[in-house]
């Protein structure tokens, strides 16, 4: 059984076709990357998998559960980090993690919160209000929220978006470490270097279509490129 199975997935916004029948699958334990420019359809795909949007047609399953028909079950085994996400400014980081952990496991939430605090690396600032955090601190808190429960699938939309190099490196290491604990990760990015470093498999997406899938080295070799960025440009331009 695949961790993620997407087949002929189509999504319309009014008359605009955002996804034009994409197909890919993610194996359990993978760190899988969806790469593409802005507006390619990465976020729409992830939002469908996170049960936020309904597919217009096609199939999207997570560990065998249909994201539309079994949305409640899907939500129990996934966690989702949107590209543009914030926290509740009048709650402390600790309260935020506790609130989220309680919704997954009201009995054992404390151990998850402790793990979340460790992942976030916020130290004592975890007891300060989120409103006082910097953008990087908020992103680390949100990533900790998404990963602290060790979900079966973590869907991370541009996990290092808007972060400086140092913080982005920290976050990439966190993702790698969590993935070792039986967490399948599906992430999107337009940073080819990041994807090359993190993911064992990727799909290149452009204008609502998957243009290539495989490991980063397979894709680079398939078009005789020197890096993933060059491969992407060659594939898109045909």
């Amino acid at each position, binding site marked *: 059984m695949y961790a993620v199975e997407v087949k002929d997935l189509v999504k319309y916004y009014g008359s605009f076709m955002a996804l034009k029948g994409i197909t890919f699958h993610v194996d359990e334990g993978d760190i899988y990357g969806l790469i593409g420019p802005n507006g390619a359809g990465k*976020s*729409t795909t992830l939002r469908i998998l996170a*049960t936020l949007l*309904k597919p217009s047609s096609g199939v999207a399953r997570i560990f065998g559960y249909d994201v539309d028909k079994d949305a409640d079950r899907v939500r129990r085994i996934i*966690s*989702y980090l949107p590209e543009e996400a914030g926290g*509740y*400014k*009048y709650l402390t980081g600790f309260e935020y993690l506790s609130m989220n952990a309680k919704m*997954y496991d009201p009995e054992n939430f404390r151990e998850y919160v402790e793990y979340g605090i460790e992942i976030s690396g916020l130290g004592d600032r975890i007891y300060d209000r989120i409103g006082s955090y910097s953008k990087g601190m908020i992103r680390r808190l949100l990533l900790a929220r998404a990963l602290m429960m060790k979900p079966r699938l973590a869907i991370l939309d541009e996990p290092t978006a808007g972060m400086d190099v140092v913080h982005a490196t920290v976050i990439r290491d966190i993702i790698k470490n969590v993935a070792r604990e039986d967490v399948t990760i599906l992430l999107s990015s337009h940073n080819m270097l990041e994807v090359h470093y993190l993911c064992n498999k990727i799909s290149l997406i452009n204008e609502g279509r998957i243009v290539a899938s495989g490991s980063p080295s397979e894709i680079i070799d398939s078009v005789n490129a020197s890096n993933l960025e060059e491969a992407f440009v060659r594939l898109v331009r045909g």
Partner: protein
Amino acid sequence: MMRGVRDILVKEVKETFRNPRYLIFTILFPLLIYPIMGYMFGFSFSAAQETISKGTVLVVDLDKSSFSHLLTDYLKESGLNVIESDPNSLNNTEYLIAIIIPKGFSESILNGSQPVLKSRVNVGSISFMTMSIVSIPQSILEGFKKYIGSEILIENNIDPRIIYDPFRIDTLVYVREWGRLVPQPQLSMYIMNIYIWPWILFGLIISILQISTVFLSEEKEQKTLEILLTLPIDRKAIILGKILGSSIVAISATASYIVGFVLYIVLGSTFFSMVDGFTEILNTPLHAIILMSILFFLELLFTASLGLGIAVFAQDTKAAESLAGSFAMPLMLLILAGSMLDLESLPLIVKYIYYAIPYSYMIKAFEHMLLNDYSYFIFGSVITIIWLIIMLFIISKIFSSEKLLTMRVRLWKRRRGVKE
């Protein structure tokens, strides 16, 4: 309780009560404004009396006649701190009141040529208390007019009541809708309260509407909504948590208004106790107050759910507040119609529409409380509950679809689609 409801509720309560904007406008504002109003009514009157009793009243007697002496004694007996002085003393500004008795005062009174008794009141600035300061000496002088008039009449063996109070007036107003007679002074008190209440509640409803709208729109603006919707809890738990959160806001805001109003009555009691009908309002039966409170609470709960429904269309808090604010005008028109129009004379269909609107019942709630008309509150509560259920059904439908993320209105302009 459904999983997640408590956590959402706790989150909403923490977020709300830590928000200075909410605390200032919904809790502190009514706690301050009503006691201040009560203080203005009550203490300004007693403060004015105190100011006058402590202040100096200069009497410049240019006549030195029997009536001028009589006036000076009369002012002293009225408890004023009277100092007899010459015209030059008017140049200093230390006095509170100066009364100048003109030359020929007594003679002019007796020959009927109406002398002019000049009085000057010295106030620091114009305030609510100024009215009382000016009116108190005025009424003392009016009393003196009656006094000397009575003295003259008694000297001529005429009963002063024949001239000044030949008969008494007892006006009773029969209110057909109430089916009872009401003394005219009491009616004034009733009307004042009947028409003030809906406007107090209007302010409360608009503020609850805006707060509950912001509850959801802030999730959009803070970019927290998507995470919330992917949590492993039923979407109904999110709605319930938010509605209950709004109801706590409603309860705290109502409690704040009630405490503020009680303080308003207590602090203003020196003033209100002079008004006929006040005692009857204080003696309102407890169960009438409870029924009215239940109706108000249900209306506020409906308002909270309405706010949540409105917020679905708003992309950010600014748009949400704008949408919530657009309800102010129809609500104002409803209050004006309910207060000004004779509902019995309206066409049947208009009457049905009027009574199908939950907010219609708050308009004359005070009046029906005075009339002990409990069926009015029960009927109003039932109508409001029906609307509340309809509203909750609509919201739960929207929450279970993707419309919550894709329906957007920014300052009235509808945008299609969402950003990838």
